[in-house]
């Protein structure tokens, strides 16, 4: 479970995140939805602990947070297995425990065939899966994913969706940020809509449609975010 309370971050005169609060429960995929510049990436970085908030707090239970933010950032001269082992060792894992877990992750992501290959020249899908494997290596209770389907083909997106659903069913808390509304509608159990650095609505896709009297999530999203941006610009 991830609980964010009154998170605030300012860059110079720009308030990127303003008193943002929400809760992402265990056993659910929570979508973080917002237009460009809404503060999603800043929020995810603060939750992951690589950016200090000016005020507010983040609480996460279980063994830490696995975060895939911005980019895969693989080491191209290392093999898939070595990339996973490196991150495992940085989490304090070693010996048979580490090698067993690496094998488990490789199998779960279908990466066994490329386990001994250096990651230079990998397809976008293989890169994404390896990066995902690195953050799953220590079996974190909470996962943060920022635009994970960017540049992926349909079969890879489908296999990623299946994996995330499996992790959710195992009780993990997944916070999923995306611009692709259809992706969020299909995958996420709950949606948190962010605009101009604050939460403007929360609920299931159906609830957001009902509250805004919209026929589609796209219409609901536009109504919710444009209203907030209009108020902020005044």
């Amino acid at each position, binding site marked *: 479970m991830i609980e964010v309370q009154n998170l605030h971050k300012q860059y110079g005169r720009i308030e990127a995140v303003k008193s943002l609060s929400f809760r992402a429960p265990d056993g659910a995929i929570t979508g973080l939805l917002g237009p460009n510049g809404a503060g999603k990436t800043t929020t995810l970085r603060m939750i992951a602990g690589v950016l200090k908030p000016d005020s507010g707090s983040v609480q996460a239970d279980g063994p830490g947070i696995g975060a895939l933010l911005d980019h895969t*950032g693989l*080491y191209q001269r*290392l093999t898939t297995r070595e990339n996973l082992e490196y991150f495992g060792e940085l989490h304090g894992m070693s010996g048979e425990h580490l090698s067993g877990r690496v094998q488990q992750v490789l199998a779960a992501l279908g990466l066994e065939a490329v386990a001994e290959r250096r990651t230079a020249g990998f397809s976008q899908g293989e890169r994404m899966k390896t990066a995902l494997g690195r953050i799953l290596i220590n079996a974190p209770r909470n996962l943060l994913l920022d635009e994970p389907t960017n540049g992926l083909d349909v079969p890879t997106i489908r296999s990623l969706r299946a994996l995330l659903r499996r992790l959710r069913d195992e009780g993990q808390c997944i916070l999923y940020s995306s611009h692709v509304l259809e992706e969020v509608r299909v995958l996420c159990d709950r949606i948190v809509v962010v605009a101009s650095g604050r939460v403007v609505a929360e609920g299931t896709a159906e609830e957001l449609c009902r509250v805004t009297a919209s026929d589609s999530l796209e219409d609901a999203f536009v109504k919710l975010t444009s209203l907030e941006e209009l108020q902020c610009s005044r």
Partner: protein
Amino acid sequence: MQSLIIARKEILDHARDVRSLVSSAFYALMGPLVVLMVSMGTGKADKGGNVLLAMMSVFALVATFVGGMNVAMDSIAGERERRSLLPLLLNPIERVEVILGKWLAISFFALCGSLVNLAGFRVVLAAARLPVPDLLVPVTCGLIPLVLLASALELLISTFCRNVKEAHTYLSLLVFAPMGLGMFLVFFPRMTQGLWFVWPIVGQQSMLQHSIDGRGIAPLEATLLALITVASASVVLVGASRLLHRDEIVYGS
């Protein structure tokens, strides 16, 4: 110690970059090659021999800076450019451990460069039929501490620079520090007298020159120089570690 895990990964990663290793080896052997060419021009006359030996001390100082240059460039500036720095920092590690690990790896390659350079000189001096000086004390108390300081400075530059191109420019300029200062001291050896011997680079140059000339090296001076050089490296590493805590350094904006 997570810094050792990081150091081992960096060494493995860069040891596979054969092109980079070859270019670093050429850089390290540049000194012996230049001296070889000069020796062919001057013969082994007394004056020519002195010039060769004086040049050797300058190139030995330069070599401590060149072996780890490519690795340093790739370490933080390269990681940020390839966007692998943030995923690394998302792991439960202290920033100081990241700096220490990368510094150890840079120092390893810098030391290798320095040893390749000295081995090259040994071959050249033997070919020119000049006596090979005993460099045990200058290497252990002078060049190894200087390798540690040079690596720390290179890592600081790599941390500060936004991309590899910028880091390359500043690292190339850094190499001029031992080159320029070393050449200056060859022509103005008086500068190595007095308390100047405790200054990094100046002290190493003085120590090398003493060994080459067959003069003795005072143990106290050698120990003091080693300690001051390593202490300077520590200060630089603290600076690099502090830089890595800044958001604009991590995100490059």
